[in-house]
């Protein structure tokens, strides 16, 4: 059954703060909130446009080196950005694929970018990033209640 709210976090759990997206999903899924589906993957790709179908709203969650700590929130619009030229797409590009596939605007999508610091294979999540994760989860609870 398709739930009205999708939370999609991505990243590699074994690459330090890149784990923020999957960790966010683990913590959020543990709450077992009604009407909320939590999905994760290593990175975004074209087929994830199909996960946006029949939703009321979507929250994308990723680690970011650019975000102001502890996190930034951005309302997204579909975009033809250069991530189309990589194996890893941006959420805006995934939304653009949705537009191309369905010839309609995707559901409202928000990006929660959690500040990370280190991304090497085998590293643990940094203390600062763990703190940012807590703050992001608290914000998300409010977002879901809104």
């Amino acid at each position, binding site marked *: 059954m398709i739930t009205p709210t999708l939370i999609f976090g*991505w990243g590699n759990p074994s690459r330090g703060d890149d784990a923020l997206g999957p960790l966010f999903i683990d913590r959020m899924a543990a709450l077992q909130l009604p009407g909320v589906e939590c999905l*994760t993957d290593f990175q975004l790709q074209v087929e994830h446009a199909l996960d946006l179908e029949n939703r009321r709203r979507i929250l994308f969650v990723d*680690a970011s080196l650019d975000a102001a700590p502890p996190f930034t929130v951005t309302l997204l619009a579909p975009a033809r950005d*250069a991530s189309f030229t990589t*194996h890893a797409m941006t959420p805006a590009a995934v939304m653009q694929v949705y537009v191309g596939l369905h010839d309609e605007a995707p559901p409202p999508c928000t990006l929660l970018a959690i500040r990370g610091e280190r991304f090497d294979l085998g590293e643990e999540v940094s203390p600062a990033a763990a703190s940012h994760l807590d703050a992001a989860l608290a914000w998300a609870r409010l977002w879901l209640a809104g």
Partner: protein
Amino acid sequence: MSFELETAISPEKLRRVAIDPVSRVEGHGKVTILLGDDNKVHQVRLHIVEFRGFEKFIQGRPYWEVPVMVQRLCGICPVSHHLASSKAMDMMLGVKQLTPTAEKIRRLMHYGQILQSHALHFFHLASPDLLFGFGSDVGARNITGIIAAHPEIAKKGVLLRKFGQEVIRMTAGKRVHGTGSIPGGVNKSLAPDERAELLKDIYQMMAWSRDAVGMIRQLFEQNLVEYNAFGRFPSAGMSLVRADGAMDLYHGGLRARDADGNTLFDHFDYGRYWEVIGEDVKPWSYMKFPFFKSLGPDDGSYRVGPLTRVTHCDSIPTPLADKEREEFMAFDGGSVTGATLGYHWARMIEMLHAAENIKDLLHDDDIIGDDLIATGERQGRGVGVIEAPRGTLIHHYRVDENDLVIRANLIVSTTHNNHAMNTAAREVAKKYLNGREITEGLLNHIEVAIRAFDPCLSCATHALGRMPLEVAIVGADGTVIDEATRDHRGLTRAFA
């Protein structure tokens, strides 16, 4: 030994152009080109920042954790690492033969991976170059351009990939970080409702896969001279083959042929791969250059992947793909079998083969069986080899008496193809860039040659803002003469 255009005689006098990173490949790759005052190309090198921390990441882990942990080495082909490491641990446990259910579930997972990976590469990473032209407008030369101009093709690509991911989810247990394959077998078979769900769509996937083979054939017919010559060079090759010489992407012996087609070794036991394969190093690259020991490091480089697999096997054991292979081998007197862009055609034949295999496996009752694990006599070492989407993948482990991994060696497909990709880039640079003003469109020709191999650079990290493209022309004194930059938001500045 240095190959033509590998090392310039007086590099300090030359301008330097960098394609950094190479786009539409996984991970981080960079091409540097040294140009003389007349824009003559003096040196071309593909640098791949190979991460050599794999061994450290794996060492000290209990062996049963390895098939799950190694999936985190690569966000694009985690299933290939999952299966290669499982096969290595089978050997380590002394398991010589899996149960029928275990082997067929693993094969189903593998063909799902082949299908989704080949679909992504052809429809979304390669088709913009092939359908719009190598030097066409960079703003449209991407998947959204394909969606706009060829929506049906783009949709097929998305749905083929989604289907392959569903096969993986059902056989591995989860969309990502699957645990389905374990040392000695699998931990689940397919449920009847999962089987029925996949059967609903598989015939459509086979039809679309046939269409894709037809599409790349048509592109070759329309551009035969250019495609055949593009980045072409003679090369040795290696792949697994079944005992009867037929294609087998999951298991078999190693077959290698030199550039003239002479057999170097055949049905060689991959458990002793180091007897036939060496690894050379170059001072300018972190990535190793594997070679056939019988030919030596100077003459023993080779390529792996779809083109080698389709041309080296004696047949393909599914009828539709085998017919397409016969037509591919005969096309224009066999000329495409040596073309770098022939990789795309061979890749689509393999995608059809994967779809046919999935269909056959879904009709086999063994996939819903419950005999999942085999046992054997414990060994201290294990080697697992599969034909991953990009080519031969080798996992080699030693495990101590406490069941902890004490040594690991991985040779991934992109490492096997290191020399071949460098050679293809040089051939293209000689033909298209020599003596001309460098433009984005011309530089893309280099990337087209590299992308034909679909290199996976083993980098699964991707945090926002970390995927820029920077192309710089640098003078002999290190001064930046001109540059183009592109970040994750799009092309922000082109050449002056």
